[in-house]
């Protein structure tokens, strides 16, 4: 598995978002975005770090749809 810390995920994600939306953002807003990206990755990294078994299924609400004709 690739080491999540071996690359600058914050920097890369921030750069991608700036490339896409940067023209909408002032320098102050760009600073807020960078902090927000850091916060999101601080959120998902602990989630990524929890080990689960292959059979640990997600809690989904999906059910097939069959309407009467």
């Amino acid at each position: 598995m690739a080491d999540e810390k071996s690359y600058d995920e914050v920097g890369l994600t921030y750069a991608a978002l700036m490339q896409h939306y940067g023209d909408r953002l002032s320098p102050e807003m760009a600073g807020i975005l960078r902090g927000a990206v850091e916060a999101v990755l601080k959120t998902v990294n602990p989630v990524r770090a929890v080990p689960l078994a292959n059979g640990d299924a997600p809690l989904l609400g999906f059910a097939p749809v069959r309407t009467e004709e």
Partner: protein
Amino acid sequence: MGNPVFLTVRTLGELVRTGQVSPVELVTIFLDRLEKLGPSYNAVVTVLRDEAMKEAQATADEIRAGRYRGPLHGIPYGAKDLLATRTAPTTWGAELFRNRRFDFDATVICKLRDAGAVLAAKLSMVEFAGGMGYRQPNASLTGPGVNPWDTNRWSGGSSSGSGSAVAAGLVPFAIGSETWGSILGPSNHCGIAGLRPTFGRVSRHGAMVLSWSLDKIGPMALSPDDCGLILDAIAGADASDPSTTAQPFQYDPTPSPRRFRFGVIRGVTDGVEATTRANFDAAVAAMQRVADIEEISIAALPYEEITRTILFGELASAFEDLIEDGRIAALTALEDRVTPYSRMAVLAKDYIKALRLRSVVAADMDRAMRGFDALLGPSRPFPSTPLDEEFPSAIRGVGKDLMGAIGNLAGLPAISVADGFTEHGVPTGMQFMGRAYNENIILAAASAYQTLTEWHLRHPSGTAE
């Protein structure tokens, strides 16, 4: 009839049923209060005077004709402005939608109308229910929600108007919604009873979506008993909301004939503000008169991060159109115009991982709560903060909210009731969080707490007249 302000829904309902007050009289009094006092608290988006007076007259005629529908018949209420209504704009708290109208009523609005309740106002809220990253209370087209206990402090979010309107006696009850903290938070800050039902208990059809798998709609009122009466009217399966459960709910106000058994999660008050913690400790001590209480341990998991990952992933999709086309630039709070872009950093695998962990947490918590009537904890880790200050928020990752994360992640019901006051004179609250579908048990427990204390009998000064 005397002053009906701060009478419970049950009491008002009895006055209406017995003809001691007419719905027209009652609705007029609360409409006047909404118009006169609502602006002081930034609590109201739209007062529905004409529509409410017509409905009040119709309910009065029905009751006179012997068709009494139950305890909500003729009782005015307010609804958080994320519930679609035909008769008024539905703003989602955002300037962007100041004049937006739907051509249908949310299921909750329809159910309350069927119960005879009279919609008197659409109530203020944080824009887009607070999911966009706001840091200060002013993130709303109506301005910051003002706390009736201290008008320099916040009423909480995102159901800001629902909290302050009930606390200030502008309506006998209100409807709020919670994705993570939006019912319990304002209920805590405003010192009222607020019930977050089990996920799927109440239809969200016609409500703004922040997160499909986290959003819940629930009552905010003066007592747990009132919350039960209101939940009885709004609960139930709805074909328009596939998440609703077929599990029936019928409110049972009978006091528990036995001692309760409560758990307190080890470390639940870690990081909690000092007065909030002290008030909670005193509340736990009081409850020992009617309950056996023991500390429990739960697995060490990143509960807050799991809940946030699901929230971020779902809201990025729910508001994809507004994010992509740049309309979020019209939001009030600077952070709300920027932070949504960052939610795209949540990868699909992160979201699915969080849903897999949700399975683990839901099963673990159900096991841990077996044999307990409820888990106790502070409703919020901090009391109401000044209007011009940033507030701590577990959604932003600034501040802890273990029970809020777990309860919303696992879809568990919880009720907040006041358990004391701070040195600034604002309330703090205690929550009772139950197993799925056990609303009757936590309502009974919260009612039992209120037989032991008098915090719920206090009202903000200057609001009773």
